[in-house]
């Protein structure tokens, strides 16, 4: 009992030691050839940072959009001849309709005042003889409706005699959502392609490394090295390339954010949005490092398993 536990511990210690040795020796080899390691990692890093930048930016944009007032509403622009009294009456009437949550009235004078304040066309507006704006009712449904439901509501409201135009306010957000969905799909595609590229780059680099150590592998096999033992240093090397590449990609993202943040803030300021690039974020950086590591490991794995099987003592 005691003995078997000691055996198990000894085996465990040997296993950990073997892994540590493999890790240290393969990282040592990467460090001993700094230039080629740097070039390979940089190529992988650039390949990683591209889709990451796109992906993270899209995430931020979606988050910014979901932060917008997403309350569904239909704006009813009433006919010019509809008086304020009639508008109030209509609002009261609509309030009792099934499916309607709330109705608010923006009367023409308030609307003009708001427009004057926001647009700065004070003098031009002063020239107008009368207020050109109609009264507006903003109808919010009782519960959240799907696009076809909100469209039905809009049609029904458009049929009212007092209504000149019924407009669904979130249409532009829906369009933007659709565009974002396309962009997200495209990013996924690009990411998949570039991930394959990373696998190929790592695989090829590891293949060269294996060929350089062919003698060692043959001798190792002759003296009883298991496949796992022979694989280990190359897998660590692959993971090492991936990790370095992840670090490089993080640095590139940081530089990119530094260079782009100014212009992006200006654009979002013009849209009265607080949107900023959020690339440098612990979660983003961690996932970038992890994907580098994983891709490196997987790329190495594919090559190592195949290649080591081909190299046998003669």
């Amino acid at each position, binding site marked *: 009992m005691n003995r078997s536990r000691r055996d198990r511990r000894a085996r465990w*210690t*040997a296993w950990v030691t073997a892994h540590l040795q493999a890790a240290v020796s393969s990282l040592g080899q990467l460090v001993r050839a700094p230039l080629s390691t740097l070039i390979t990692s940089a190529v992988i890093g650039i390949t990683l940072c591209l889709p990451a930048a796109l992906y993270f930016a899209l995430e931020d944009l979606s988050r910014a959009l979901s932060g917008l007032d997403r309350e569904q509403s239909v704006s009813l622009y009433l006919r010019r001849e509809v008086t304020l009294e009639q508008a109030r009456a209509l609002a009261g009437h609509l309030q009792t309709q099934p499916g309607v949550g709330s109705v608010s009235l923006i009367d023409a004078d308030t609307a003009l005042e708001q427009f004057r304040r926001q647009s700065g066309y004070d003098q031009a507006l002063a020239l107008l003889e009368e207020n050109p704006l109609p009264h507006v009712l903003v109808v919010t449904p009782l519960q959240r409706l799907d696009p076809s439901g909100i469209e039905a509501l809009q049609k029904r409201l458009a049929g009212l005699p007092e209504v000149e135009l019924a407009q669904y306010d979130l249409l532009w957000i829906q369009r933007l959502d659709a565009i974002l969905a396309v962009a997200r799909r495209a990013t996924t595609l690009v990411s998949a392609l570039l991930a394959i590229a990373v696998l190929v780059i790592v695989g090829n680099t590891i293949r060269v490394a294996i060929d350089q150590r062919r*003698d060692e592998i043959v*001798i190792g*096999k*002759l*003296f009883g*090295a298991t*496949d796992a*033992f022979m694989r280990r240093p190359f897998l660590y090397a692959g993971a090492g390339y991936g990790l370095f590449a992840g670090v490089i990609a993080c640095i590139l993202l940081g530089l990119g954010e530094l260079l782009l943040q100014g212009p992006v803030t200006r654009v979002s300021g013009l849209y009265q949005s607080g949107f900023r690039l959020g690339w440098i974020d612990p979660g983003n950086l961690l996932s970038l490092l992890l994907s580098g590591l994983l891709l490196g490991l997987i790329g190495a794995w594919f090559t190592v398993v195949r290649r080591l099987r081909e190299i046998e003592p003669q």
Partner: protein
Amino acid sequence: MIQLHQVSKVYPERGEALRQVSLQIDRGEMAFLTGPSGAGKSTLLKIIALIERHTRGQVVVDGKNLERIGRRALPYYRRHIGFIFQDHRLLTERTVFDNVALPLVVAGVGRGEIERRVRAALDKVGLLAMERRHPRALSSGEQQRVGIARAVVHRPALLLADEPTGNLDPELSLEIMRLFEQFNRVGVTVLIASHDLMLIRSMPHRIIRLRDGRVEDSGRREAS
């Protein structure tokens, strides 16, 4: 230790390298394998080390039927064998110490144990002072002794040597053979392929002669 029963080996390109070879080598025996080149000496050693698989017949080494040893079990089987090559096959980028340590490293032996056993093996072949050197800095005879240290460091039950003295002058060759005798004396089974008849005839060990893939003389004088 080694039993071959009607063993044949056919290479697709070269044809039959071994034809129905039957042999027995006892535990603790030292034997030479000789014959003209192309007689099948190397092939026989490779089959015993499972570098090659035989085509027909049965090979049993240390009680294990080699046909039953699959890919996964192969490394563990080889850990009971020490292999010595004519061309040494040392890793030129590694030190003598690292070269000799390889069979132990591969088997997951601890650092302290490795140091002890590598030094003991180097001591036995008289190269303890050379452990920090690189193989290229050594003479051919010294390199072969490093190869022997590597082949015995993991205390294998069976030593296989393929023309271990092929590149050495007679004096060095004898020295190497004496080393093999030393290991044999402590119980290691030794099988050496060599075409140096002068040398091996001068030693009191069994000589198995191969010709055209057949056993011409099994070197056994027992009545059978």
